[in-house]
């Protein structure tokens, strides 16, 4: 038996005192929480004051209270349009995740596929993708498929790039170890590269989820009879600025919730993999 003194292991108490640690942090960081809320509130207050006392037409800048009124008065209408937008965003985001990951895997799998794909991927990134939106209407019509496809077209890219970076982040000596164990490229991909990648994949997903919403809304701007993008366009054309702003507020909320879901998923996966 070998008795060796060593540095004490750094044990991070995750479950036992998780909640109390969280509360302590919140308490000591109360200003970090209160200050941004206060700033936002003051901003809204200033906005309210300017639009009410500044003699500004509500068409140009409606006060926040008017936007809030629209939100409550037209709640059923706004919800009716929120549902397809959210649904299509989720669909586009949901498809872009496996698509981005699969393409990244293909790219990293061998030197040949890497060389064949990488320059094209870089070129693809340079395309101003929004400019192609009208073409998707030409290709796929004015229905949901064209918007969803366009949104996928916009948002799979960050996932692809981030996943490729993650798959390639495996340490040089780790790869040597794999080769010394005579693991195949496929084994290395599945057993080592993929499990190393989640932190990267999630950072790509965080960018992608916001782009997915942008893709759907742009699609709705161009040709649609439903969705928040359509409602914003409709309200603006009738100079109902308050309704347009109410829709934008809901869009922000949808974006926030989806982003929050990605962050939550990240936390769960990280804990499972014991990376953080």
């Amino acid at each position, binding site marked *: 038996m*070998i008795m060796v003194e060593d540095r004490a292991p750094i044990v991070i108490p995750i479950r036992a005192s998780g909640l109390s640690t969280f509360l302590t942090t919140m308490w000591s960081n109360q200003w970090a929480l209160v200050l941004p809320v206060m700033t936002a509130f003051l901003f809204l207050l200033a906005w309210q004051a300017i639009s009410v006392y500044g003699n500004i037409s509500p068409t140009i800048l409606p006060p926040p209270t008017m936007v809030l009124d629209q939100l409550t008065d037209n709640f059923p209408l706004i919800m009716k349009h929120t549902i397809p937008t959210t649904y299509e965003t989720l669909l586009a985001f949901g498809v872009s995740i496996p698509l981005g990951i699969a393409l990244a895997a293909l790219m990293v799998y061998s030197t040949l596929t890497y060389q064949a794909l990488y320059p094209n991927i870089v070129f693809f990134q340079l395309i101003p993708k929004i400019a192609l939106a009208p073409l998707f209407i030409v290709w796929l019509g004015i229905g949901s498929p064209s918007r969803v496809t366009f949104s996928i077209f916009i948002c799979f890219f960050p996932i692809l790039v981030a996943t490729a970076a993650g798959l390639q982040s495996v340490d040089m*000596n*780790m790869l040597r170890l794999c080769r*010394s*164990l005579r693991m195949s490229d496929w084994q290395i991909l599945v057993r080592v590269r993929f499990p190393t990648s989640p932190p990267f994949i999630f950072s790509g997903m965080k960018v992608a989820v916001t782009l997915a919403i942008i893709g759907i809304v742009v699609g709705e701007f161009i040709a649609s009879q439903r969705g928040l993008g359509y409602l914003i366009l409709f309200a603006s054309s009738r100079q109902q600025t308050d309704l347009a702003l109410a829709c934008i507020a809901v869009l922000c909320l949808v974006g926030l919730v989806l982003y929050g879901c990605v962050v939550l998923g990240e936390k769960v996966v990280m804990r499972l993999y*014991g990376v953080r």
Partner: protein
Amino acid sequence: MQAEICCQGVRKVYGKGAAAFEAVAAATFSIDKGEFVCLLGPSGCGKSTLLMMIAGLEGVTDGRIVAGGTAMVEPRAEIGIVFQDPTLLPWKTTLQNVLFPIEMMHKDRSAYLGRAMELLRLVGLDDAINKRPNQLSGGMRQRVSLCRALIADPSILLMDEPFSALDAITRDDMNIVLLELWERYRKTVLFVTHSIREAVMLSDRVLVMGRSPSKIIAEIEVPFARPRDFAIGETSEFNELCGMLRDQITRARQGEAEARH
């Protein structure tokens, strides 16, 4: 005794033409079965490249490497390797990391479970089997890596500056851990290091490698009795041998400088 590893005029050149870089000029030596040999040299002298060639992870430009009686042409699962960094998989526990080679070699995991537990007990990690690498200290991680290299019962153990990233105290501890394991299993070990004391402490024989040209410039037997412990480092014989090795390296450096002028 029979030679387990045999290198004959091994040369490695990276690149071609004007950009060509000779990492190893000519390495000729052999290591007996069960022998502990240290490859000592300044950083950048090509000793790690040489080790990677012996592991079959790098091809040779010229020369021949024979390990276990057959020419080395590709990596072999029966050679254990320990790198400078522990290279553990962060999502696997200590035990899972140790058993990773078994899993990858499609061998019966349960048949090696006992051996894994024995190795972990020998390095003093039997109460950390279910911990993840981020819960272990640097020294503990490197011990896991050592157990992983030994799990498949390889005949050859190649070590590439395995303790150089650790602090001095942990490093001394690791030397003792390694010696204990070696006494028990008697593997053929080639240990790359740039620490003279470490080389003398551990090995039966020290191969000194020079830089430009990068080749074996001296070969010194270490006569100290085994099993060894820390006390040996305090003896005058030990320090004399260290001094001699230092002279060898200094002389090689001077030769290098003269050759350049």
